[in-house]
């Protein structure tokens, strides 16, 4: 069953998803996972928030991944997000110059997370956004959502996803500006103000 017959495509049935569980913390997070922006880059934005469950309780054990384009809208093809030290085997952190577009962070004991990355550029007819993938104990399959940025109302109004949503639901995908370059984006897995999650077909 687990040796896939690649001669006939219909036999390549997908491997089922499972929860990330509670004990990934020593395996998946890496140094500098939340610091995606090259040091001192003028287009740096900070996005932060909480992940909460159906009772509004923050999750201290959620894992988030962020993937986004550069400010000019191009998608990075650069490795080095989790550079390693050949001598010690430890994580070195990023090299401070290159932009990989990929971040990974675990919520802290308060259920809070942050990422510092570059402000994404627009692609096609879409308003600029960061793609976010959410993993957690209890979540049998990860969830995709998006962080959009306030400011350009015309671009947000024309976005192919946002324009399909009712106002209340749409609002869950647009971060709130707290100060120049700092945005709040909470992820509510269930219940009041539940975040819009996406399914790609």
């Amino acid at each position, binding site marked *: 069953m687990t040796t896939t017959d690649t001669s006939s495509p219909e036999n390549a*049935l*997908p491997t*089922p998803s499972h929860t990330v569980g509670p004990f990934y913390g020593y395996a998946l997070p890496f140094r500098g996972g939340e610091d995606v922006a090259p040091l001192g880059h003028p287009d740096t934005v900070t996005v932060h928030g909480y992940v909460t469950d159906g009772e509004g309780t923050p999750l201290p054990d959620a894992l988030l991944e962020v993937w*986004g384009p550069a400010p000019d809208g191009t998608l990075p093809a650069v490795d*080095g997000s989790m550079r390693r030290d050949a001598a010690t085997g430890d994580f070195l952190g990023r090299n401070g110059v290159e932009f990989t577009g990929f971040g990974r962070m675990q919520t802290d004991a308060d259920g809070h997370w942050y990422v510092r990355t570059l402000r994404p550029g627009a692609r096609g007819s879409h308003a600029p956004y960061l793609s976010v993938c959410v993993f957690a104990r209890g979540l049998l399959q990860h969830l995709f959502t998006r962080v959009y940025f306030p400011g350009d109302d015309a671009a947000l109004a024309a976005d192919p996803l946002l324009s399909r949503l009712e106002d209340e639901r749409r609002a869950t995908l647009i971060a709130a500006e707290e100060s120049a370059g700092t945005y709040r984006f909470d992820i509510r897995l269930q219940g009041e103000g539940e975040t*819009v999650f996406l399914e790609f077909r």
Partner: protein
Amino acid sequence: MTLTQHDIDQEIAAHHAAYTERVAQGAPVEHHPRRDYAPYRSSVLRHPKQPLVAIDVRRNPELVELSSPAFGERDITETDNDLTRQHTGEPIGERITVSGRLLDRDGRPVRGQLIEIWQANAAGRYAHQREQHDAPLDPNFTGVGRTLTDDEGRYHFTTIQPGPYPWRNHLNAWRPAHIHFSVFGTAFTQRLVTQMYFPNDPLFPYDPILQSVTDDAARQRLVATYDHSLSVPEFSLGYRWDIVLDGPYATWMEEGR
């Protein structure tokens, strides 16, 4: 009232019967668990109740999600795929080799992508601070590995057979032995986190996490096959496990394959 295994067994059977009935009525096969699967108690407050919003990727070829982060040699060290060589001493337990191919839904190899694994040690204990199970830690085993798939989509790990471990879902709950896998595809939409199991584990029917995959054939795909040709003489037992990534991807990105 503490939940017993019997309570959980009944819930598992009810979900399985409901799925069988849906399929008999013409509903599609479900390859993945439903996020709302109450026998796994942690899922109850952590799944969305609103339907997911569908995005047709064919109409949106510029989607960020149709590309994937890149990983390379800088992100890997030489011993990362050998979990038995990460400390000065030999870890305790039965050495195993785990190998297979990473494929997309068309059966084509996914090359140069990152596979990360983590697992409990031979005694069923994770090297994690919050782990409460009082089985012994092994100073020579952390249980974390990483590799990039090769040009045929192959991956290869050398590790230790993990032990089963208890958890607190219900009274006398035990997880069958498993290795956690985290996998990237050519598109972020193909992202997969899952668990690999070992053949003939007597704990399978009791485990609500494995049973959350209600389709019998899909559940079987989480179980590796013992493969004598992967066993290394005088060293390790071999298991084969192929991984097929779901989720749409942009075929126009596949030039040169």
